[in-house]
């Protein structure tokens, strides 16, 4: 399991290669990338600053990865979450799951994304045309997480 909270960008092909190495048993690789959008609600977003809780962030990402690995037969797993100043079009988060079969890879990636939204100690502040504001948590996110119970 590769877990990283980092300021730097990531490259998906390179991250997939780290999981594959010389393995020939993997049948399925699912990835999900979350990006900064240039619009939120009706407001144009100029910049997004991601604050995080160093130490606890890595611990929580690890916990979420372990939960996913306990539910689905994964062969490999990467979760990278960026922090710092990001701009529309920039990558925020990457999840990669590998498995022998596609169902496990897909479901685990979805599960991890739902849990990241509510459990990873990261906070988004947006700079819009109307000024700066902290992004509010959505009750929708709690619902998405709860559907896995």
């Amino acid at each position: 399991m590769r877990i990283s909270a980092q300021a730097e960008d990531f490259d998906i092909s390179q991250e997939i290669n780290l999981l594959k190495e010389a393995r020939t048993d993997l049948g399925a690789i699912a990835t999900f990338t979350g990006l900064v959008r240039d619009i939120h609600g009706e407001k144009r977003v100029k910049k997004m600053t991601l604050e995080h809780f160093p130490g606890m962030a890595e611990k929580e990402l690890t916990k979420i990865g372990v939960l996913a690995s306990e539910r689905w037969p994964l062969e490999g797993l990467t979760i990278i979450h960026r922090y710092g100043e990001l701009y529309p079009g920039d990558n925020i988060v990457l999840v990669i799951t590998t498995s022998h079969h596609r169902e496990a890879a897909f479901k685990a990636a979805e599960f991890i994304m739902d849990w990241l939204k509510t459990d990873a100690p990261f906070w988004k502040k947006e700079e819009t045309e109307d000024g700066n504001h902290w992004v509010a948590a959505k009750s929708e996110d709690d619902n998405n997480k709860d559907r896995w119970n």
Partner: protein
Amino acid sequence: MNLIYFAYIRESIGKSSETIDLPDDVDTVNGLLKHLETKGDNYKTAFAQSDLIRVAVNEEYVSLDRKITGSDEIAIFPPMTGG
């Protein structure tokens, strides 16, 4: 006791961390929040919306009735918006 603040709670209080002496009669997270509110309006503002307060003790999420001691590290922040 070490306290850490994040996001709008950090901004309202005006610092990202501080060390305080935990009063003898405070032994829960809720008690700590009430104690901090006596320190100034910045804390009152930070904790005004009680349903938006999340707390971690030693990097573990806890409920507000969690028991604490002076050697714990307490982080206070709003709901996470990662992902």
